[in-house]
Each structure stands twice: as structure tokens, then as C-alpha cells.
């Protein structure tokens, strides 16, 4: 069983190492370029807002972060549906990463939103703003994803329950926004909610910022997925090495058994002799 699970993983690593790294590098460079362009547009191209002045520039960070985080949450629900349908662990890993990065973006959204609220309305938190309140509720719900996940030990059940949560929460996002929007009294006109009523240069800057943040999201997700995959491969290799070391020990004499405390070595050094022994 250990052999069958680790062999494909190792050949995967050999086969996918180059292109995957190139793709990651290309994605990172594109992200950095678009982010730099977005920042340049924000500071040198977009006009100052007539009412809010320089403060309004936080809009180009805050709103894209919020949009991308919410799309990530809803996207994670779709990935979780795929996991429940196919039962393949990779969909669950993608859903996990999507929610994880969305949570980080969510924290950033709440902080930038708070700063903006303090600057423009004089309060760190404003209950009249339905988007802000809905976002907080959604964030609080998703904040329980990891505690739920890691309170389940069996990996298969962990993935399944996490997917059920992700689907439920994904459906909750739009419903919650509708309910909170209904509940608010529309005190603040929603001037900056959409691009349709933004003047041209502002809209362009906003769209480039949105693209930059979305790319940043994808890049972070790719990195985390790569790390998770590498960690899985490493664990499989280590297990293989331990199993083979154990087999060698069992057949060897008592004197040899004392001399081979294999598992502490880094996986690379252990894996090499182990695979030779297996062949």
C-alpha cells in the first residue's frame, strides 16, 4: 500500500518539477508586474476624489480585496462540490487553499475597510454599511472552517466534512448579503460600489487593481498548493523509507538494528538507499 501510493508521487515530482516551477515563476512575475502597474496607476494616474481626496485611494485596494475574497469563498464551494462528486483529494486541497487565502484577504479587507471608515465617516466600524457588515458575518463563518477541519482526525472524513461546510457556507454568502442589505436603512448612498458610476480613469485604475489582486490570489493559491503537494510527497517518501528501513532491520541481526536509526535523516538522504534497496 505504501509503495503504490508513493511511486506515482515520486515520478510526478520528477516529471512536473520543471514546468511547474516555470509556471509558478511566470505567474509570480506577471502578478508583480500587474500589481506594480496598478500601484503606479493608483498614485500617478487616477485623479484625486473631489470629496475624499487622497483617502479615496484605499478604495483601489480595499474593494478588489473584498471582491476577490468573496469570489474565492464561492469558488471554494464549487471546488468542494467537485470533491464531493469525484472524491478526489486534489479538489479538497484546492478548496482548502482557496478558503485559506480568502481568509487572509478577508482580514486585509476588514482592516482596510476599517481604516477607510475611520477616515471618511470618523468611526472604525459602521453598522450602516451593509457590505461591511455582511462581510464580517461571512468572515466569522469561514473563520470556523479550519477549527472544524482540524478537529476531525480521519483524513477522508476531514475532507468530506470540510467540503460539506464549504458548500453550505458558499451558498450562505449571497443569501447573507441579501438579508443584511435588506436590514440596512440605506443611510449611505452606495457611490463607490460599482464601476458603472466611476469616471473613466478611476474605473480603469480600479479594473487593473482588481486584476492585480486576483492574480495575487491565484499566485498565493498556487504556491500553497505546491507546498502542500511537496509536503505530501515528502511524507510519502519518508514513510516508504521508514517501511523499508524497518524491513531491513527485521531481517538483519540484532547488532545492525542498533546502528540504524533511519527516520531522523532528511528524506532525500534516506530515500536514495531505500529506493535502491527496493529495486
Amino acid at each position: 500500500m505504501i509503495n503504490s501510493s508513493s511511486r506515482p508521487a515520486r515520478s510526478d515530482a520528477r516529471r512536473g518539477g520543471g514546468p511547474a516551477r516555470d509556471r509558478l515563476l511566470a505567474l509570480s512575475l506577471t502578478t508583480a508586474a500587474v500589481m506594480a502597474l496598478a500601484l503606479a496607476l493608483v498614485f500617478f494616474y487616477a485623479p484625486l476624489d473631489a470629496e475624499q481626496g487622497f483617502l479615496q485611494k484605499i478604495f483601489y485596494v480595499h474593494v478588489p480585496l473584498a471582491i476577490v475574497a468573496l469570489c474565492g469563498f464561492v469558488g471554494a464551494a464549487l471546488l468542494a462540490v467537485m470533491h464531493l462528486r469525484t472524491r478526489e483529494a486534489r479538489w479538497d486541497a484546492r478548496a482548502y487553499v482557496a478558503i485559506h487565502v480568502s481568509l487572509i484577504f478577508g482580514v486585509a479587507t476588514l482592516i482596510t475597510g476599517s481604516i477607510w471608515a475611520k477616515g471618511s465617516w470618523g468611526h472604525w466600524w459602521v453598522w450602516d454599511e451593509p457590505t461591511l457588515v455582511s462581510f464580517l458575518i461571512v468572515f466569522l463563518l469561514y473563520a470556523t472552517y479550519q477549527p472544524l477541519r482540524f478537529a476531525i482526525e480521519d483524513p477522508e472524513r476531514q475532507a468530506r466534512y470540510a467540503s460539506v461546510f464549504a458548500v453550505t457556507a458558499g451558498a450562505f454568502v449571497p443569501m447573507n448579503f441579501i438579508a443584511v442589505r435588506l436590514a440596512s436603512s440605506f443611510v449611505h448612498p452606495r457611490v463607490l460600489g460599482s464601476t458603472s458610476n466611476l469616471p473613466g480613469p478611476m474605473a480603469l485604475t480600479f479594473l487593473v487593481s482588481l486584476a492585480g489582486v486576483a492574480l495575487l490570489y491565484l499566485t498565493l493559491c498556487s504556491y500553497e498548493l505546491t507546498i502542500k503537494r511537496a509536503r505530501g510527497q515528502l511524507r510519502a517518501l519518508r514513510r516508504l523509507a521508514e517501511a523499508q528501513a524497518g524491513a531491513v532491520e527485521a531481517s538483519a541481526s540484532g547488532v545492525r538494528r542498533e546502528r540504524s536509526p533511519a527516520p531522523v535523516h532528511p528524506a532525500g538522504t534516506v530515500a536514495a538507499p531505500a529506493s535502491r534497496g527496493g529495486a
Partner: protein
Amino acid sequence: MRTVATLLRKELLVELRSLQSVPGMSLFAISTFVVFHFALNRNTVEGDLAAGILWVTLLFAAILGVNRLFVADAEEGGLEGFLLAPVDRSAMLLAKALALLVYLIVLELVAVPAFALLLDPSFTRSLASLVGVIALGDVGVAVIGTLVAALAVRTRARDLLGPLLALPLLVPVVIGAARASAPLLTVGSSSGPSARWLLTLGLYDLLFGLISYALFDFLLED
């Protein structure tokens, strides 16, 4: 349908014999009203405040029941027994949700009169509207509570995770129910619960009913 009836009968029988949920929930609700009296330093409440106190209390009392909903089954092997039976698994969802609904109704039969007695809210309009709002809210709490209870019961920290998962999911129910009941608890108000809140509550109940139905099977696989 017969499976649901059988399971529901078993739930209610177990509760009747062990009395482990409903009495605790009712007592908790009454204590909470007393706490609200002292915390707010008010002898009477009305309007938004009354609706808020009523719904917060009902919600927290409900969560006590949610936390216990699957515990006996998970610990005594009831779920395994159910899985061995050749019946539709959704029957379990329906039976548990109905059982929770019954608990909530019994809870409210105690808690709403206690609320009236202790905090003297002004029930201005006919009680029928309030009963309607409470019923819609109860369905939402029962459906979401059952789903959350099933999610949390086989985790290590279920007593903590149940409420943590349930509260954000129930915020829209609280919004809808509290806003809908506020005019019913306001002196001199002539308007009933506004249709949009009833509609929101109804839609929310329906949506989460469907989601729970679609997802519940995945929680009962092993």
C-alpha cells in the same frame, strides 16, 4: 415517510425518558430573561429591544438543544445502527429536524409566557402574527441546527464548534425574525410584520432546507 415517523418517535421517546434537552433549554431561557433584566436594568421592554431579547434568548437556548442533538446517537452507536438499516438517509435529517422543531416549540411554550411575565413586553397585536413569525424562525433554526449538529458531532471540540458554526449561519434568521417581530412588540404600532421579512425568512428556510437535504448524506457515510 414511515421511516421518518419511526425515527421521530424514537427521538421524542428518548427525550421524554431522559429529559436531557428541553428542560435545560427552557430553564436556560428563563434564566437569560432574568440576566437581561439585571444587565439592562429594565423592568419592561418594547419594540426592537424586546424583539432582540426574545430572539437572542431563543437562539442561545436552541443552540443548547443543537449541541445535544446527535450526541447520544454518536456515542451509543445509533448512527451505525441507522446506517445498517436499508432506508433513505435523508430520513434521519428530516426526523432530527422535526425533533428539534418540536423541542423549539415546547421551549417557546415556556419561554414566551415567561418573557411576557418577566419583562412585560407590550403584545400589541394579535398573538397569531407573533406565532407565525416564531414558526418561520423555528424552521430555519431547526434546519440549520440539524446540519450544524451533524457537522460538529464527530469532531473533537463539538461543544465549541456547534455554536461557532451555527451563530453566523443563523444571523439572517435573527435579522428576519427580530425585524418581523419588532412591530408586534411596539406600543401603539398598527403595522403587522412586514412582508419582506416574512419572505426573507421563508426563502432562507427553503434554501437551507434544500442545501441540508443535498449535503446531509455526505455526513453519514461512515
